[in-house]
């Protein structure tokens, strides 16, 4: 039957895929153009792909990098291999669900994200963790998958704040652990402001070097890929369809923040290093007909 596909999953679910073309009225280009009216990007936009083409690689909401990120050029076709001759940058985000990413800058000044570690992947209930629990995992991965590497760590600037209970900061814990395990700790703060990090990420995503994107992600970094695909998105004001200029805190925001600290450090010109923590009060209005791009 046109528009209906069926398959069985390994877990015994019979899946009916019901595409809009199952309805003969919806097969005409005229109907599709009308239905796409109000959706950002029309029939080629992500909203159409997700809602009408049943494309599971597109997230709902307002993706932070909807315009800049293109899967075909930013996600490598094969897993990216570690190059022992190059420095390894680690990007750290702290909090209750800390994350870490590993990256290298190749000889063409392309930043390659090779590895990620998350303590919560967004599936199922949120699992709390902390930097002390994550450190052994990070050092184990670093020694096993990046033997002989020299590491430079870029971390959330909030990590320098001392705890009110024991007076230790996340960076103190990192320093002690890294000094003991790898013999040194080279920990630097990522850009303080969201706008500086965002500008740097935009710059990295839109720059081309020798015909390839200046930022490449290994397909093994599934949380980063999903984050760029749209799981890293702007925070909605309630269920209003209005979005603040700040990203939503979710499972994907932590590895994305880790990536931001590395990108922010490597793709920010010194003259463009503003300390701009003023919140954004820009709002993006969704389509009033509820079939709009984002909800």
């Amino acid at each position: 039957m046109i528009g209906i596909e069926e398959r069985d999953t390994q877990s015994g679910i019979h899946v009916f895929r019901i595409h809009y073309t199952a309805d003969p009225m919806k097969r005409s280009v005229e109907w599709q153009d009308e239905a796409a009216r109000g959706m950002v990007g029309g029939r080629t936009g992500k909203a159409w792909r997700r809602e009408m083409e049943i494309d599971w690689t597109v997230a709902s909401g307002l993706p932070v990098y909807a315009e800049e990120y293109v899967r075909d050029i930013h996600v490598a076709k094969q897993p990216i291999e570690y190059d022992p001759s190059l420095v390894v940058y680690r990007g750290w985000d702290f909090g209750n669900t800390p994350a870490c990413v590993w990256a290298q800058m190749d000889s063409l000044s392309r930043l390659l994200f090779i590895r990620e570690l998350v303590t919560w992947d967004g599936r199922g209930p949120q699992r709390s963790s902390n930097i002390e629990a994550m450190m052994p995992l990070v050092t184990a991965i670093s020694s096993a998958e990046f033997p002989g590497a020299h590491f430079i760590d870029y971390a959330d600037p909030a990590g320098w704040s001392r705890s009110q209970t024991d007076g230790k900061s996340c960076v103190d814990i990192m320093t002690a652990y890294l000094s003991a395990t790898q013999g040194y700790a080279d920990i630097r703060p990522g850009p303080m402001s969201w706008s500086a990090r965002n500008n740097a990420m935009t710059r990295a995503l839109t720059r081309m070097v020798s015909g390839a994107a200046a930022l490449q992600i290994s397909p093994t970094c599934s949380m980063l890929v999903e984050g760029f695909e749209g799981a890293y998105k702007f925070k909605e004001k309630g269920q209003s369809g209005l979005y603040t200029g700040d990203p939503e805190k979710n499972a994907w925001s932590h590895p994305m923040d880790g990536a931001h600290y590395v990108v922010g450090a490597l793709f920010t010109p010194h003259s463009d290093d503003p300390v701009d923590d003023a919140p954004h009060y820009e709002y993006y209005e969704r389509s009033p007909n509820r079939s709009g791009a984002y909800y």
Partner: protein
Amino acid sequence: MAGKGSSTLDIPVMEYAGKFLSERIAPRAKATHPFADAWDYLSRAVWTKDEASGQVRQFPASVMHDGELRFDYLRYLTAERPKHRVRAYEKSRRMLITWWLLALYLYDIMTEHNHLNAVASDKLEKSAYLLGSDRMEFIYNHIPETVWPDKPVVKFEHRAGMSGWRTVRCETTDSAIMAVASGESQMQQYTFSNVLMDEFPRWQWQEESWRNIQPTTQGGGCVDIVCTAELGSYAYDLLYDRVQR
């Protein structure tokens, strides 16, 4: 029914038992109704309300476009659905799937005895809304008298929100539908006959909810999972065999 003057004394025990089963018990397994099948019920008895315009329309079973039935896919799904116990529908928007399933869940409790069904959403208010006056209650109230003159009495109980109900109970069949929320222990405590999980990929507690309905699936119950594509959801992992990651 056995005739008033008949005596059971001169009927052999087995014959009596057979008569009892066929006359008393068997009719309870399937309540009487005027429909040939579920599609016949949908075609003749169900009316829906257009969410955008508020217009009340008959379930569009016979609406044509360029010589083709527009909603023939629903007829196909109605026929295919009972062949599988756990069904997922990954769909484009506005394909009438939720309306179609709600109408079938209502039909189920009006025609099957002792069924306990669940309609589940992310939040209880949303589940209750699906049972409420804009959805299932609307369908029940608009079944034409001429089509189903003595339709079973269905009670909508325990108000939740402006237009929602927590329970729908059919007195004739002793069957019921409960509104439940994602992750609720209700889903684990009961073995349901049917569970409708609406917009599952957008639930906050997908993995937990999936685990909670295992008593239903293992107990022979049926599940209908309605999905709009959502990146990074547990539903995606489940439907595309990525749950091991």
